[in-house]
């Protein structure tokens, strides 16, 4: 049983579902009681026993709470993961935890935590967003080495979403700068996810002996609308019918296919792309006691457990451990040449060079 409270600001229910995410904050409170349908008698007995237990051990069984501050497209994944983790945690002999998740743009979420949002766990789109929180001393500077795979339990990559049948014959990055092609991608200045799009284009140009700066310049000249976030760009492409190709996270592209039917769009996988690593970390400064620390630690470590990895595969992320995953979820992902952020010298170099004030991205629009 998952209770979801949605606070929708400026997006009515009459609008397409995925648009609500643009300006809304969602909180999913995951299971305090996980109750499959049982007979009334059994439920009454269970309730009485539970009541007695709660009364008997009110002090000891104080439900632990945990707030996970995440970014937009992980909403569906964490809703299921919270249920899965709560079950597992209780099976280890712990009290049912109260898990909350908040979703929004990665940068805005990071700022909220910096400004005092009491998150014990952050699961954001970019390491540089978590680095910013670390710079305030809210978590250790070496946070990314404390969990396997750069603290990224799941990864994704950047692919192309094109109109059904691929009428403009878009196969690879160089097709995007063809005559009359319109590319939809969010503004990398306001969207953390969109920085991966830009870097993937850069990586392709570099591998193919082109001047990467000239190539991204050319690419963004084909962008008619710079939305502020990834979901906004998806809406512009899918609902407004603008553009020939949407640069999207692979998991978002599959989500779009799932939600809008696969008769409208096709996914095209380019020859080169980037391994997008959305990392996770514990915000140590917001941990109030050892019990909460244990819960937060387990919450993050369990993301690497086979069943959680299977869940990530199910939600269209490229996870690491395929042992428990459904074969069709794994087979969905074609192999492709992936570069990593380390090829750009890490975020601490890539961020200021490319996306900083007056950086390479800004120079596309304002010649220096």
């Amino acid at each position, binding site marked *: 049983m998952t209770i979801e409270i949605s606070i929708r600001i400026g*997006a009515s229910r009459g609008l397409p579902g995925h648009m609500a995410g643009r300006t809304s904050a969602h909180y999913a409170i995951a299971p305090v009681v996980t109750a499959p349908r049982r007979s009334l008698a059994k439920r009454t007995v269970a309730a009485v026993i539970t009541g007695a237990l709660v009364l008997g051990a009110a002090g000891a069984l104080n439900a632990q709470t945990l707030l996970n501050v995440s970014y937009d497209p992980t909403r569906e994944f964490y809703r299921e993961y919270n249920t899965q983790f709560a079950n597992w945690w209780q099976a280890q002999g712990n009290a049912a935890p109260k898990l909350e998740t908040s979703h929004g743009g990665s940068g805005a979420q990071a*700022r909220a935590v910096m400004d005092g949002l009491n998150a014990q766990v952050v699961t954001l789109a970019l390491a540089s967003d978590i680095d910013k929180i670390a710079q305030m001393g809210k978590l250790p500077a070496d946070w990314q080495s404390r969990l396997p795979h750069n603290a990224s339990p799941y990864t994704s990559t950047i692919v192309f979403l094109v109109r059904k049948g691929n009428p403009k014959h878009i196969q690879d990055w160089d097709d995007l700068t063809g005559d009359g092609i319109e590319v939809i991608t969010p503004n990398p200045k306001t969207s953390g996810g969109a920085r991966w799009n830009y870097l993937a284009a850069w990586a392709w140009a570099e591998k193919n002996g082109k001047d990467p700066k000239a190539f991204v310049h050319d690419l963004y000249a084909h*962008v008619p609308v710079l939305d502020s976030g990834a979901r906004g760009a998806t809406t512009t492409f899918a609902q407004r019918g603008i553009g020939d190709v949407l640069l999207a996270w692979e998991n978002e592209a599959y989500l779009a296919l799932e939600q809008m039917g696969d008769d409208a769009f096709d996914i095209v996988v380019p020859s080169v792309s980037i391994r997008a690593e959305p990392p996770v970390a514990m915000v140590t400064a917001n941990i109030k006691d050892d019990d909460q620390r244990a819960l937060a630690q387990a919450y993050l470590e369990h993301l690497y457990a086979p069943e959680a990895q299977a869940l990530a595969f199910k939600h269209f992320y490229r996870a690491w451990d395929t042992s428990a995953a459904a074969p069709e979820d794994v087979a969905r992902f074609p192999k492709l040449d992936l570069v990593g952020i380390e090829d750009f010298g890490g975020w601490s170099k890539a961020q200021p060079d490319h996306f900083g004030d007056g950086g390479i991205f800004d120079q596309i629009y304002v010649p220096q």
Partner: protein
Amino acid sequence: MMAALRPRRSAMPGFGITMGVTLTMLSLVVLLPIGALVIKGTAFGPEAVWEVVNRPRTWAALWLSFRLSALAALFNLVFGVLLAWVLVRYRFVGRRLFDAAVDLPFALPTAVAGIALTTLYAPNGVFGSVLAHLGWRVAYTQWGIFVALVFVGLPFVVRTVQPVLATMDRELEEASATLGASRTRTICKVILPMLMPAALTGVALALARAVGEYGSVIFIAGNIPMRTEIAPLLIVIQLEEFNYDAAAAIGLAMLAISFVLLLAINLLQVWSRRRIENA
């Protein structure tokens, strides 16, 4: 006689408490946030502020924001006065419905307005598809921003002009007619000057609202730097980079320009009011 010269308590009771509440509210709601912005900006240093503002991209965004806001406010001046006139002077079926509809832009969350307008004006939308045939793109161009700003600013002029028009003495118009003035002359020389101060208040409000508008514009503007990037978006971009100082600098620039514009409108208002009184 002497008693009259001393400052004395107003005949109206409650001055102390109402003034106290007013000052507290004003400080908490208006003065403190703006003061914080000014302090943040001055701590950053005037040269640094100027360096941020004096960039081609910032100027482009400021020029775009203020130019389109002013145009939208002027558009609303003309059509707001016309709308108020229709609502006050004529009786027709559905008048109350129209009257209530004028306030909708106030009530609607701006993001909803933005999304709705974008849906209508996008090239595959109801209006957008027709306009696209004429080769006129509205959504994702400066036209789209203009449409959104007209929408959010519409109620101001109507609502400020309406009560003045309703209480306006009809005898003045009749006198003008009996003295031989043509209808156009009556409108230009009698009615409009009397509506002017109220209409200017409406324009000032609509302009102020449009300059700060973010929610609705962001959906319909293409947000392309140097072309369709509004100044509030530039502030948000700076915030995304955790660059609070630069964000405050652009905020200060907007505050200063708005202040000058509103002051100018106020002076115009004083002048137009004097003209009525002297007439």
